């Protein structure tokens, strides 16, 4: 799975190969047909096709003469799913971090660590906040519990 993903992403890193995939998304095509829109030699296109084949993104048909290439969607779906899970993990985490940073900023202002920016004393986020004076990490953690998050 992992080596496959590497190969998938490597294969997708090139614009010519993405264009080939986009073409094959419409339907299968021979090497000649695939080479047509690109200012490239057939061997150059064949090299790209080999990379795509190795990544499992395309396969060859059985018609002896033409051997048309066709798109195999599964590795793409794997790559997308992986990236999507990765994104979801970080999106959820960063939303919590936003809240935490707001809290840290408030504590920092209250304890007067900041100079000029403390002029924004009427910060609405400060309302109903922590009453403690210090801005230690322990304070922040003790005022939050699991389940505070969406």
């Amino acid at each position, binding site marked *: *799975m*992992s*080596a496959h*993903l*590497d*190969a998938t*992403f*490597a294969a*997708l*890193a*090139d*614009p*010519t190969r*993405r264009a080939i*995939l*986009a073409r094959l*998304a*419409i339907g299968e095509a021979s090497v000649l047909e695939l080479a047509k829109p690109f200012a490239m030699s057939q061997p150059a296109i064949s*090299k790209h096709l080999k*990379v795509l084949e*190795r990544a499992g993104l395309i396969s060859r048909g059985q018609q002896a003469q033409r051997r048309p290439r066709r*798109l195999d*969607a599964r590795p*793409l*779906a794997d*790559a*997308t799913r992986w*990236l999507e899970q*990765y*994104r*979801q*993990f*970080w*999106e*959820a*985490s*960063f*939303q*919590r*971090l*936003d*809240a*935490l*940073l*707001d809290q*840290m*900023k408030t504590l*920092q202002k209250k304890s007067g660590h900041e100079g000029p*920016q403390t002029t924004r004393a009427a910060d609405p986020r400060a309302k109903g906040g922590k009453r403690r004076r210090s801005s230690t*990490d*322990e304070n*922040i*953690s003790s005022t*939050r519990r*699991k389940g505070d*998050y*969406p």
Partner: protein
Amino acid sequence: MTEAGALKLTTRGDREIVMTRVFDAPRALVFKAFTTPELVKQWLLGPPGWSMPVCEIDLRVGGRYRYVWRHTHGNEMGMGGVYREIVAPEKVVATEKFDESWYPGEAVGTILLIEQGGRTTLTQTVLYESREARDGVLKSPMESGVAAGYDRLATLLASMKAQ
């Protein structure tokens, strides 16, 4: 300028994942939130259901860190690594490896924090070991710096689905 809150996630070259995110806070605070166990435990939790019972950080070059997540259903997931470079409050480079890794070898993660006007742009990069790259199978000079964006992939998949 990127809006605060919008996460950008792309792949770069054939071995990297690059993520950018803007936080409405000075980078000293962001750095602290990334490197203080009691703080990391509060936010680095992914989707709902996960907690972080173990978060150990020995923040020095050569020092180790160890994260373990636990889901309410009982499954656990652990990872850790060694710090390679620390430039507070700007940069942290560390190796990373999951206990049950789904990719070969060790990855290297870099966190870069740039502050502008009280906001901080995080650029988080993960460079994966790749057998393909190591063996020099992919020698195309076109590869470097070309981003195979997630959006492109999504577009491609959408066009496939439209068939």
